[in-house]
């Protein structure tokens, strides 16, 4: 990491000039409050994460999975963080920072709705007005999170351009910010965007691996052989990896969404996956140079995943860099295996995971020998938001692990 906000050749600040003064202001605030703990900012942040968020989250031994795969599987239970996902770490950090900076309005984009929900909660908690941009497609497939945002008092603005998913929501939030930059802070939801966002969002999520590392040493007297985390934009991924990057013996595995296929349709501009780290090409999108799903001209592709939170054509520049350096191993898991992972964790461990998280369990199932004797898996979120999608998608398929819902039919009702 250099002073200019680059990770190797990745990162940078590719944004309209109108936003640059705000980004300079944010960089200054990040360095003073987050890095130097000015005015006790980090102390207040940690206190609120504890009291409001419920940190630290447990590291739990997974009995059934450990037996099934003949390896010690530990679950980092970020699904138990307030709101049901890791997202609160960053949302709370940024809304608090906006408050220290004297901003009086919060905007954010959201894909699965987890970041929007976390931002709405943090904004309500800290008494800041909040507007969330969300793609029309995502609004329809993540209804419970839309309800939660509204209940916390946030405005939800539908984005109808393009396929109406995360990529379009980010572009639209940047447009709002370009108009309101003097009074508004944009709480970006992943380790993407212009510097300082990728390193700042990572630092707010760093608490995940900080706890994992300490819990591992306390409980096991050793570090794990591997850490697994799903990767879309990459915030839970870098949160789970950050403190292990210098531990060369710990394998860091980023599990991407393989979607329905890894091949792309150039004519239609569609990649039926979100496997950016595995298949992407270097380019510039949403403020940073990073790996992207794009056609040969440089137009950004429409990505796909059954999980809305991984459905993004870009990825954090730091992850792109760590993959090029060979420090992080990118792998991918398709929609079917992710759904099976979802059902397996629900049935065998009593944890209904987010569909994003389920990709990591799909990988474990397909590669139990690749994770070593001790593996830590980041359970980045819980799956309540995905129930309708999962039941719908499961009915369409012939999966190895399944669940049938005929109980509804006997009473005459339908899902």
């Amino acid at each position, binding site marked *: 990491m250099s002073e200019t906000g680059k990770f190797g050749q990745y990162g940078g*600040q590719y*944004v309209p000039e109108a936003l640059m*003064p705000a980004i300079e202001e944010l960089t200054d605030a990040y360095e003073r409050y987050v890095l130097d703990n000015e005015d006790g900012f980090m102390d207040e942040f940690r206190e609120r994460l504890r009291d409001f968020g419920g940190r630290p989250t447990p590291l739990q031994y997974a009995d059934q999975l450990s037996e099934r795969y003949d390896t010690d599987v530990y679950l980092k239970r970020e699904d138990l963080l307030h709101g049901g996902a890791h997202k609160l770490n960053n949302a709370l950090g940024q809304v608090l920072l906006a408050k220290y900076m004297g901003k009086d309005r919060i905007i954010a984009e959201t894909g699965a709705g987890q970041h929007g929900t976390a931002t709405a909660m943090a904004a309500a908690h800290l008494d800041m007005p909040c507007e969330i941009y969300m793609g029309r497609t995502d609004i329809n497939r993540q209804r419970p999170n839309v309800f939660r945002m509204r209940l916390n008092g946030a405005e939800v603005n539908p984005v109808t351009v393009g396929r109406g998913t995360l990529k379009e929501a980010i*572009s639209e939030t940047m*447009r709002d910010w*370009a108009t309101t930059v*003097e009074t508004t802070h944009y709480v970006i939801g992943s380790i993407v965007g212009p510097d300082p966002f990728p390193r700042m969002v990572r630092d707010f999520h760093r608490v995940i691996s900080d706890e994992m590392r300490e819990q591992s040493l306390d409980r096991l007297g050793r570090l794990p052989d591997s850490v697994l985390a799903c990767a879309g934009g990459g915030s839970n991924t870098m949160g789970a990896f950050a403190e292990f990057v210098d531990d060369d013996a710990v394998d860091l595995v980023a599990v991407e969404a393989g979607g329905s296929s890894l091949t792309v349709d150039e004519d239609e501009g569609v990649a039926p996956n979100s496997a950016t780290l595995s298949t992407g090409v270097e380019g*510039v999108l949403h403020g940073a140079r990073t790996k992207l799903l794009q056609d040969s*001209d*440089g137009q950004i592709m429409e990505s796909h995943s059954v999980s809305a939170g991984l459905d993004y054509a870009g990825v954090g520049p730091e992850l792109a860099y760590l993959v090029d350096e060979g420090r992080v191993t990118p792998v991918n898991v398709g929609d079917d295996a992710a759904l099976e992972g979802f059902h397996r964790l629900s049935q065998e461990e009593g944890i209904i995971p987010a569909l994003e998280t389920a990709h990591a369990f799909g990988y474990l199932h397909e590669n139990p020998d690749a994770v070593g004797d001790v593996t830590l898996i980041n359970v980045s979120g819980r799956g309540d938001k995905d129930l309708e999608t999962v039941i719908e998608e499961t009915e369409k398929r012939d999966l190895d692990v399944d669940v049938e819902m005929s109980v509804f039919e006997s009473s005459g009702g339908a899902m």
Partner: protein
Amino acid sequence: MANNPALAAAFERDEPAFVPYLAAGDPDYDASIEYVEALARGGADVIELGLPFSEPIAEGTTIQDAIVRALDAGMTPDRYFEFVEDLDVDVPLVCMTYYNLLYQYGDELGPRPFVEKAADVGLTGFVVPDLPAEEADPLRAACDEFDLDLVFIVAPTTRGERLDRMREQVSGYVYVQARLGTTGARDDVSDQTEVSLSRIDDWDVPKAVGFGIKEGDHAARIVRAGADGAIVGSALVDIVAAGEENDDPVADVADRLETKAHELKQGALRGAEQRAEASGD
């Protein structure tokens, strides 16, 4: 300062420049050729010709829609270069696009192959809304190598050291963003324009103002305030969009564009007269 003599000449005439924008290929290749040529007939001094990118983060809905129409009709960087060669206009053309398209073109990553090709087909410069001065060195170097200009956008929020940095980098003209936000036609001209122009009045590069200019009177007002040129995009794209929606003949839409261009150019000229009167020349 300028690299490209044709672009420099467009601003050296003793009158304010009218700088219209259209997205190349909107709503299709052939109609778009007619529309751009109509702007030249209507009095355009420089034309900003948009190369459509899938994620235009600086654009409002009008130009976003134009970009979608052009992409759906098959516009690509290679087709864009053909488009420039097919145009029969005697007006310098500036390429307005986003950095990833410049970065991906050709066999090597980086802007040089795109700039080389742009020079080859006769483009005179670039406006790249997602490329601030901090990241512009590779494009600046390629522009210098091929005698093309790199226009920067000065925003209402640009002050202090940022202005100094842009002053060193800019060439051709400076694009003064009249208001915060995205592109789009408005019903008034922002008071911000005068303030922004006053911050750069000692720069020795022509100053063209854009964002929100819709009518001849708007053009007059910004020229009166000291602008050397008026940039108009969305108000023209609106005419293309209406023609497409109503299925109007291409020749009719082209006539409307020519008339609108004339109105805007006359407005700019009127502004220059008013400025001269006010200063007692």
